């Protein structure tokens, strides 16, 4: 296999594996906190923000997409707890709104002659293998390292706040701050992952590994570790597969994740009986 000789293949693999790792770690928390849908909502927000960035003519779109997505993530987690519009309705509202807004902007102020192609690749990821610049790869590596370190450092507190927020708050854990940290990290992951799988498929990276791990494992630690390993493997095989079969990279990774979920479900059933 001489694909490894091409830098863009190496870049895609590095970025893909890192994003898969980060998203699966946070995925466990989001799924257990019943926030699965927040990933989906936020990716649409990121899509809308990207459209704005494109219209404004920013070369580095992340300057705009990252803060907007972080802001919305905090807003959504916060309203989920004490607003008049309930969490799920708020997510649906913001996500559909951002999607419509983004598409409208792209049509009103076209930045290239191929709008359909642009929209399609931001929704479903690149058609072919990713082409990433060295700067993007380095940024991705740095952010991933921060996410992993933050996760390990706050692991015990994340568990406490996920399992029982009232108890954690009662014994003096700073739950609001932790929720903000979770919201920020998930926003960062989503913005990073958008290039890889596109905004419609991002939440698959977040929820599938966690759900797969939960079929088989019974402690928080083992679920988290297995979900990370599984996600990394699926991303790796997905990217390799997409190169070999010449398929869109995003959907290939997601299909690999779904297949893995199927296997885990069967194993879980056999183990359970």
């Amino acid at each position, binding site marked *: 296999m001489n694909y490894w000789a091409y830098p863009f293949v190496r870049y895609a693999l590095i970025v893909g594996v890192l994003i898969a790792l980060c998203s699966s770690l946070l995925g466990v928390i989001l799924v257990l906190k019943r926030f699965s849908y927040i990933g989906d909502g936020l990716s649409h927000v990121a899509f809308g923000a990207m459209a704005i960035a494109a219209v404004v003519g920013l070369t580095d779109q992340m300057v705009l997409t990252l803060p907007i997505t972080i802001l919305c993530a905090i807003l959504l987690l916060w309203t989920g707890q004490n607003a008049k519009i309930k969490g799920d309705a708020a997510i649906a509202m913001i996500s559909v709104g951002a999607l419509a807004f983004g598409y409208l902007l792209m049509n009103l102020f076209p930045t290239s002659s191929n709008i359909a192609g642009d929209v399609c690749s931001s929704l479903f990821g690149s058609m072919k293998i990713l082409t990433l610049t060295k700067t993007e790869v380095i940024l991705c590596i740095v952010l991933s390292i921060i996410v992993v370190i933050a996760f390990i450092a706050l692991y015990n507190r994340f568990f406490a706040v996920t399992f029982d927020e009232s108890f954690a*708050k009662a*014994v003096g854990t700073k739950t609001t701050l932790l929720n903000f940290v979770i919201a920020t990290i998930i926003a960062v992951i989503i913005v990073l992952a958008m290039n890889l799988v596109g905004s419609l498929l991002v939440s698959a990276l977040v929820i599938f590994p966690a759900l797969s791990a939960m079929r088989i494992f019974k402690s*928080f630690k083992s679920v988290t570790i297995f979900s990370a390993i599984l996600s990394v493997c699926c991303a790796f095989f997905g990217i390799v597969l997409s190169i070999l079969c010449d398929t869109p990279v995003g959907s290939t990774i997601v299909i690999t994740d779904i297949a893995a979920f199927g296997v885990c479900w069967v194993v879980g059933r056999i183990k359970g009986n």
Partner: protein
Amino acid sequence: MEQLICKNLKLGYEDITLAEDLSFSVEAGDYLCIVGENGAGKSTLMRTLLRLQKPLGGTIEYHDDLTASSIGYLPQQTLVQKDFPASVYEVVLSGCQNSMGFHLFYSKEAKERARKNMERLGISGLAKKCYRDLSGGQQQRVLLARALCATEKMLLLDEPVAGLDPLVTTEMYSLIDKLNDEGITVIMISHDIACSVKYAKHVLHIGNEFFFGTVDDYRKSPAGNKYLGEGCHHHHG
């Protein structure tokens, strides 16, 4: 020695007042049972004592080295926990989170405390079991062990026997009674007035009628007469 003194507490949310003018105190080693109708503000009172929400008025004083974060809390179970993949040990250990300070991981002492409290409640054998696979009574024991990790002084129990069958309910009550005998102050919310009053030393009745005093006085009071007449549903012997 008094651990907790509440003066003229007013409870509720923004523009809804649930209870007013609550004054009572709790001594070290006390066993206080909070009773009252649904919506009388029992859970709100408990959340206020834990500083999860602010009182609309009045004051709460903590004495005897007690702080809101050194109270062991047994909340009602949430939907999230019903299918949570966590081992019993992980859940119990999370009770030590108030002693972590700025450390990232649990200390040896914390792990030792978790083990001791599992032993104390007879769930050491379940340590590696998954929380969601346990029976209702076992789950309550796990949460009680977690609460014990957070405190040596005071336990706040929000309907600890809700949804348990009669036999397990009796077991749970005697377990709490045993902890109280070991010197831990217990404050408990209960729907089952007749049964819980059996074990308590003091009663706080809020809602339509207010009463605060010893169990014996409660039996003689109008409120007590009215609510205790129903008899004990769970305790069969």
